[in-house]
């Protein structure tokens, strides 16, 4: 039951994100335009130009500098945000690792778009999948509503003292970013109160004082040193620990927000759709989940026990939730909107397979790589996937473990 009164307005995904950022009392936005993220920065520029936000908007000269400015602005104590996609994310790659290592709780909107070459401006998950191991929290939105909600939650997740890690919220390029949807938005004051003032952890500095982890002449600190073989490993272990703690934080923030808004997305980490008694199931992320849900409903109407596990959080990987939701399922299709070249399947497939490996009754997994470069994934294709899963149950065999669906042979 929603606690606060909200209004519903038509917004495309990019505008929804821009609105969320506007409401979150962000101090610095440093961004560089790239399709299909451009509307976010354009909209935000309008807010700045009209004095609707108190934010320093830095029109940097590249995505690499965008992330750099966010890191040092964050280190100076500012709440920071940026947005990018595809090649822009790839250009930032070096700095993504620095952001995580410097424990900068930056929030970034990634409007998921295919990587070059050839250059393609449409949706797939290859951009964010390349950043799996870099130390960023990754959340994937199914629709623009969730993109709005998750962007707000992201500031709380990133800034939680147990976490203090940068967080990216993915929304599918063009499919969500440029498509109009009815989005229910919270009032400004409610969002402002929800995100609160940024908390900064305390650390011991070189004068032996306990000081806030930020650049402040009153409390000097050195951030970003050279680690030799004797300390790097320990710093990385710290990052991993915070990533693990993020699992709980994501759930708690999600639940707190759900109370305010009346909207929840599973338990915050994963969303199980008609999954409990399902015999055949699919796993996927992003906007395709919406299409899959439609197909699941149709199948269910015809008496077929189909279900879906939507991964909302990809990093940290919610292993327990994957296990508890897929345990006992006979055959599961893992749908990947990215391909790990030469890796015998897509990245989500690898992760799910590894998560269920130790289960005595682990499901058989089939990988379907789809939708690269914005190739449409349609209900009949997903229906076809479920039919193959049914066949696999009957025959007891998987014909082909890794498949490409929607590509012309």
């Amino acid at each position, binding site marked *: 039951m929603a606690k606060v009164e909200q209004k519903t307005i038509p917004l495309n995904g990019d505008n929804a994100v821009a609105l969320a950022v506007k409401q979150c009392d962000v101090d610095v936005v440093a961004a560089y335009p790239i399709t299909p993220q451009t509307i976010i920065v354009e909209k935000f520029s309008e807010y700045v130009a009209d004095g609707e936000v108190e934010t320093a908007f830095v029109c940097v000269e590249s995505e690499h500098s965008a992330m750099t400015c966010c890191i040092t602005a964050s280190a100076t104590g500012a709440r920071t945000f940026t947005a990018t996609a595809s090649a822009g994310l790839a250009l930032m790659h070096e700095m993504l690792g620095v952001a995580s290592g410097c424990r900068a709780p930056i929030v970034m909107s990634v409007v998921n778009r295919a990587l070059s070459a050839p250059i393609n401006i449409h949706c797939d998950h290859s951009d964010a999948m390349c950043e799996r191991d870099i130390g960023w929290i990754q959340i994937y939105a199914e629709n623009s509503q969730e993109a709005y909600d998750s962007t707000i939650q992201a500031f709380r997740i990133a800034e939680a003292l147990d976490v203090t890690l940068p967080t990216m919220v993915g929304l599918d390029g063009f499919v969500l970013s440029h498509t109009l949807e009815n989005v229910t938005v919270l009032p400004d004051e409610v969002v402002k109160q929800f995100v609160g003032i940024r908390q900064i952890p305390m650390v011991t500095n*070189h004068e032996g004082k306990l000081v806030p982890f930020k650049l402040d002449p009153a409390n000097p600190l050195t951030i970003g040193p050279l680690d030799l073989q004797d300390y790097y490993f320990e710093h990385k*272990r710290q990052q991993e620990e915070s990533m693990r703690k993020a699992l709980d934080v994501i759930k708690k923030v999600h639940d707190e927000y759900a109370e305010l808004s009346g909207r929840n997305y599973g338990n915050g980490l994963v969303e199980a759709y008609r999954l409990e008694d399902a015999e055949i199931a699919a796993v996927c992320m992003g906007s395709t989940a919406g299409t899959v849900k439609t197909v699941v409903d149709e199948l269910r109407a015809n008496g077929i026990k189909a279900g879906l596990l939507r991964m909302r959080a990809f990093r940290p990987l919610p292993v327990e939730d994957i296990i508890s939701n897929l345990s006992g399922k006979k055959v599961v299709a893992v749908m990947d909107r990215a391909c790990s070249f030469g890796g015998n399947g897509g990245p989500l497939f690898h992760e799910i397979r590894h998560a269920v490996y130790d289960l005595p009754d682990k499901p058989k997994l089939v990988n379907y790589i789809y939708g690269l470069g914005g190739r449409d994934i349609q209900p009949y294709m997903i229906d076809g996937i479920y039919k193959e899963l049914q066949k696999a149950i009957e025959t007891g065999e998987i014909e082909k473990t890794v498949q490409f669906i929607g590509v012309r042979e």
Partner: protein
Amino acid sequence: MSTQKKGWKEIPLGGACWMSSTEYKTGDWRSYKPVWNAEKCIRCMLCHIYCPEGAIKHDTETNNMVYNFDFCKGCGICANECPAQAIEMVQEGKE
């Protein structure tokens, strides 16, 4: 004295440095040592100014140039720049 280095649970978050470089003595890098002559010195301060280590200070009470041999690396810039030839580089151990 324990030479065990700190574990990941003990060190500050995010790589913040927790020791001053002044605790790391670079004086043992030296092969040559500057020897200062108080009478020749004209107190121009150039040795203090040019020292890459900041190892030479002017003591305003005694009006002497004070050398911190914990940090002097023996580069010889002070001796080379001194306009009064008041500094001589002597081999370490033979001064």
